[in-house]
């Protein structure tokens, strides 16, 4: 089957990667990309980093040059949200009342930040996912001296690091005993605790926010134990929820993401899902895996493009996950996928340079290194290998520019 047209819902990285993958393979039909935000695809990682350090620019950090966007020959439908997928007549309903027919469809609607009910709609309380979020937050912190970050995950840690760069007093409130406790566990979390404490971040651990003090605008957050933390600005870093509500009556099964097979195929013929919103099967991990990493969005778009043009291609969406996180002057690189029950091995000084790996049944499942990207090839090679021969992770070779 040769596709006459492909429609992508979601104009961020996964949607862009889908369009680029189609063109790379010579598809010359119509590609239509619908996006809720008014912007061409832009890069989200800088929003918690450079943009917060320096203040906002006039437009988001676009993922491609003007020329590269033009060369893609995509029909952009921006500033429009899809509110329903009608599988029967193969149309999309948009929030402006218009109806778009589709032939092949890719759902790439991403995820949105989780909010905290008691702080909903209160002035000075922010989430960080979109360019608009970033502009609002950057504008607000320009006049702030004290910021409370709720949630010690990646967004919380990166926001804290960027705000410390501007000399702002930062407190992180985290229900677990360490930062990044969920994704990386207590032992690595302790190192992150030290990294942030050393840079002057106040850590309030084992605590949850139950409310706030102030009128229309926050003056302090109130913790469950009654303590109050003064705050000119509050940033919520509580993780993300996949945007699947609009598919409710579509016949597509959703459960913490769009359920799809290993290639992204959903239950509706010719409809696929990729990126943060997708929860595909994985032969690599033997279960469903929803991954929210930048490189996954990018790879999944490229993979689904192959399947769209050749359903026999069987390109799996889930590859070995990789992510990075920039905090202060240090970058964390993580590769693999560990379970919380895997045993963690850590090596390195108490400073910012260290490495860790997880093992299950004597086999390495994931590795993370702080401050040394040159370890990445060896880290990736170590996955699936015995701990006895591959831990600690040594660089494969040392090279010099010739």
């Amino acid at each position: 089957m040769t596709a006459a047209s492909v429609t992508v819902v979601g104009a961020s990285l996964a949607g862009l990667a889908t369009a680029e993958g189609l063109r790379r393979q010579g598809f010359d039909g119509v590609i239509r990309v619908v996006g809720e935000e008014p912007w061409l695809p832009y890069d989200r990682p800088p929003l918690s980093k450079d943009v917060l350090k320096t203040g906002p620019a006039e437009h988001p950090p676009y993922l491609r040059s003007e020329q590269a966007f033009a060369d893609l020959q995509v029909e952009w439908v921006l500033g429009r949200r899809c509110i329903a997928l009608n599988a029967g007549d193969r149309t999309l309903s948009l929030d402006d009342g218009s109806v778009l027919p589709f032939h092949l469809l890719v759902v790439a609607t991403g995820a949105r930040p989780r909010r905290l009910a008691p702080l909903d709609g209160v002035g000075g309380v922010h989430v960080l996912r979109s360019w608009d979020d970033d502009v609002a937050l950057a504008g607000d912190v320009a006049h702030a001296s004290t910021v409370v970050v709720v949630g010690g995950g990646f967004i919380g840690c990166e926001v804290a690091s960027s705000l410390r760069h501007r000399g702002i007093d930062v407190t992180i409130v985290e229900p677990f005993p360490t930062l990044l406790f969920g994704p990386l566990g207590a032992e690595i979390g302790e190192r992150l605790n030290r990294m942030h404490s050393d840079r002057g971040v106040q850590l309030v651990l084992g605590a949850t926010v139950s409310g706030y003090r102030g009128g229309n605008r926050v003056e302090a957050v109130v913790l469950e134990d009654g303590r109050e933390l003064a705050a000119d600005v509050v940033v919520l870093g509580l993780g993300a929820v996949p945007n699947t509500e609009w598919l409710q009556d579509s016949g597509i099964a959703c459960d913490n993401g769009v359920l799809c097979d290993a290639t992204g195929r959903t239950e509706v013929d010719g409809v696929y899902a990729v990126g943060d919103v997708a929860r595909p099967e994985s032969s690599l991990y033997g279960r469903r895996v929803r991954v929210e990493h930048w490189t996954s969005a990018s790879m999944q778009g490229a993979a689904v493009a192959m399947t769209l043009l050749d359903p026999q291609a069987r390109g799996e969406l889930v590859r070995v996950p990789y992510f990075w996180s920039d905090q202060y002057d240090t970058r964390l690189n993580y590769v693999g996928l560990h379970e919380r029950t895997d045993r963690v091995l850590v090596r390195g000084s108490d400073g910012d340079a260290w490495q860790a790996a997880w093992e299950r049944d004597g086999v390495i499942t994931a590795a993370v290194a702080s401050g040394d990207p040159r370890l990445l090839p060896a880290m990736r090679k170590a996955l699936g290998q015995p701990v006895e021969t591959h831990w600690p992770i040594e660089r494969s070779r040392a090279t010099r520019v010739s």
Partner: protein
Amino acid sequence: MREVVVDQKKCLAYGVCMMTEPAVFDLPDDDDVAHVVRQPENDDEWANTIEAVVQCPAAAIAIVDV
């Protein structure tokens, strides 16, 4: 003929390329940007190189006609 190139002004040393195709890409000890150490030599290496193009967080890798 096609050739893979790294734009070293864009490279931010994420290391994803050298992880994806270590035969082609490297972050040398004495430089803080990625280098192409040699061109891909077979279909597998080309497939991994294209994967590196897609996965580069800095969009610093391109395949060009020469």
